């Protein structure tokens, strides 16, 4: 079955260059070899059906029509050995800790800017920097309750951080659904593997949310604030609220009176202590942000400022996961923690620097160019896979507004086999790891493995033809 499989010049998570499985994949490799092709095909189809039946879909935004789709699932899991995971955990905790200190600093004394480590204008003129947040005493100084850190492996098999998501990282529900379907349809694959279970994760997450309640309130009233059913991540919102046993609310279910947030219930108003919000900053409070927002709650920022409610993730976090600020995260780790970064960044070119811009414009066919204020794999140029027309469009856009762009070398993302019916083919993957911050930092075991299903594609985003795999962290 793997006879025709080629690792090519990429790092393959499962197979070595000579076609031998890596030791942690040996058991699974043998099992796959023992199963008839028809059975794999049937179970593969059963898995896709299972997602559809459970209604796990996401919305693809398009110019003319939005459509709901399921995320294609592939049954070969991303297996991460225990020792490799433990190193990664340390690196993630270190990174999120530094980013949290950065946010606390930026919205208070701005010491890191005074010390000249980061050009001040990159921060204070960033569209995600919110002056409204300054000097707010955030409970436990916790700005990042949940981080989604996107990791890739390069051709040497070394993990690198591609992106920090510190606003509203989504995808946690898919991790549980991937595992559920895997257990349902491929139960035999788990035999002879001792992997981390996901069962107690929601109690960790609930504990983390409780620990950041204002004024040390015990047994706080926690709600999840969603923009509503039309949001692309609504499934994520409803699943998480249900698993945490907290109310799923919309803006119209809440009100602020005399600096206190209340939830409207059939028995009258009930005070709210912690809001796990999945609404973007601009829509949170029409009094202080976009005045015509119907999704938020007027006065929410005033209650936050008074210290009467926790808003998680914190308001204004986007200034720390901005694509231009990303370049400075290793410096932040050294500055705030006095430590060397355990996980490296991907090299980044700043297009507002004339020399770097000249280099990038001369090498557009070899680089990846990203717009600093876009996400989801939109508005991106992948040089080697682009046409000269598209490169010209980007060249013009860069020349018009260079500060809006960064460039990175094309990383040869690691690959894993994907079932293609007749055989397997190698597809590029990344991993969104989730870090929760309460009284103690906690890294969710595994995370969301995304796979670029289009042959040769490097874009793993579900909106751009990406799929998902289960992620296993071994315990032995």
């Amino acid at each position, binding site marked *: 079955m793997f006879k025709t499989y080629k690792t090519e010049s990429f790092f393959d998570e499962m197979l070595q260059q000579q076609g031998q499985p890596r030791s942690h994949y040996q058991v699974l490799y043998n099992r796959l070899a023992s199963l008839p092709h028809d059975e794999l095909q049937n179970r593969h189809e059963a898995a896709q059906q299972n997602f559809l039946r459970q209604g796990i879909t996401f919305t693809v935004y398009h110019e003319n029509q939005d459509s709901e789709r399921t995320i294609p699932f592939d049954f070969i899991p991303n297996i991460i050995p225990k020792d490799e995971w433990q190193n990664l955990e340390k690196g993630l905790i270190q990174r999120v800790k530094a980013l949290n200190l950065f946010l606390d600093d930026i919205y208070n004394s701005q010491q890191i800017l005074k010390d000249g480590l980061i*050009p*001040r*204008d990159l921060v*204070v*003129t960033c569209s995600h920097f919110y*002056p*409204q947040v*300054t*000097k707010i005493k955030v409970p436990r100084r916790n700005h990042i309750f949940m981080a989604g850190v996107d990791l890739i492996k390069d051709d040497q098999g070394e993990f690198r951080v591609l992106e920090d998501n510190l606003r509203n990282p989504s995808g946690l529900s898919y991790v549980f659904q991937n595992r559920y379907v895997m257990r349902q349809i491929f139960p035999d694959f788990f035999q002879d593997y001792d992997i981390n279970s996901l069962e107690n994760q929601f109690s960790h997450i609930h504990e983390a949310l409780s620990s950041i309640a204002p004024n040390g309130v015990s047994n706080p009233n926690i709600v999840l604030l969603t923009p509503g059913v039309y949001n692309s991540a609504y499934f994520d919102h409803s699943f998480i609220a249900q698993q945490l046993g907290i109310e799923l609310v919309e803006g119209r279910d809440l*009100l*602020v*009176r*005399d*600096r206190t947030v209340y939830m409207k219930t059939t028995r009258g108003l009930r005070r709210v202590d912690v809001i796990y919000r999945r609404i973007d900053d601009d829509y949170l409070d*029409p*009094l*202080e942000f976009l*005045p015509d927002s119907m999704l938020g709650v*007027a*006065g929410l920022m*005033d209650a936050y*400022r*008074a210290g009467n409610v926790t808003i998680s993730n914190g308001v204004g976090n986007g200034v720390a996961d901005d694509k231009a600020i990303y370049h400075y995260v290793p410096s932040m780790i050294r500055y705030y923690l006095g430590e060397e970064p355990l996980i490296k960044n991907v090299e980044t070119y700043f297009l507002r620097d004339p020399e770097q811009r000249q280099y990038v414009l001369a090498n557009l066919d070899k680089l990846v160019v990203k717009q600093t204020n876009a996400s989801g794999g939109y508005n991106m140029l992948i040089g080697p896979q682009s046409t000269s027309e598209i490169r010209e469009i980007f060249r013009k856009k860069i020349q018009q507004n260079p500060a809006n762009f960064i460039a990175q070398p094309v990383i040869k993302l690691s690959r894993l086999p994907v079932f293609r019916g007749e055989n397997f083919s190698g597809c590029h993957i990344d991993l969104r790891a989730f870090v929760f911050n309460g009284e103690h930092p906690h890294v969710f075991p595994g995370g969301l493995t995304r796979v670029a299903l289009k042959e040769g594609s490097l874009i793993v985003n579900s909106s751009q033809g990406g799929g998902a795999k289960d992620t296993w962290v071994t315990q032995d």
Partner: protein
Amino acid sequence: MKYKVTQNTHYRYEHSVSQSINQIRLKPIDDVKQECLSFKKEFSPDVPSYTYYDYWGNHVETFYAWEDHNELLLVTTSEVIIDPYAFINTLSFSPQMHDAFRSTSFQQQYAEFLMKTYYTTLDDEICEQLTVDFWNQSPNPFEYVKLVNKYIYDTFTYQPGSTTVQTTAAEALAKKEGVCQDYTNLMLALCRYRGIPARYVSGYLYVGENSAMRGDSATHAWVEVKMPTAGWIGFDPTNNVLAQDQHIRVAVGRDYADIVPLKGIYHGGIQHLDVKVSVHAIEENVKSMK
């Protein structure tokens, strides 16, 4: 100069409203040039309010008018002393000041006041074309700002009602008419284009006997620019003057969005807003206690 400023802010609603949350920025600034001796506020109906200082240092008051009401009256009274000796009419630039002005550290320190915002975005080509002569004629950035101040005053027609609070510098420039806010937006754009940190100032104007000054009916707006070794220097393009001891400063920010004097959200029907301001000179040229 010592002033007493009274502002009557009167909201009337067509039908009774409730759950009203409001923010006001009406307390005059307290600093080296201007001392706010007192600030009193009265709400009718009587409602609770809470204070904080924003990123720009402005005093902000949030108040909640929860129960049903048909009107809301807010009276604020301030006493302010402005030090008449704290102002300059000319600024000569030493070579060191020119260097400081061009330095990265100066540009970085005032980055917020050099950025393009919703109100102040204007195409670079237009800025270049409008200002190239002024820039070349000016021995230093201070003189440049004076020329721009006069240019806007000469070019624009003061025309209340021709623009709204949403009008941008680009839109006002196309019409060449507007009110103090429009004059100010354009001035901010043209200063920032040349690397001069510039901020929006809202406040009150004392017109006294000098009825030629415009902007007395309600709150006024003008510009402050930062020069190396000097403080923030006020320019009023609506009146083609330097903003000195007749300009009572209330709030500063990057543009109007940062200093909105009154805003609120409530449940209910249409509102009518009536604002009356009176500025009286109590004593001429008293020296501030500072």
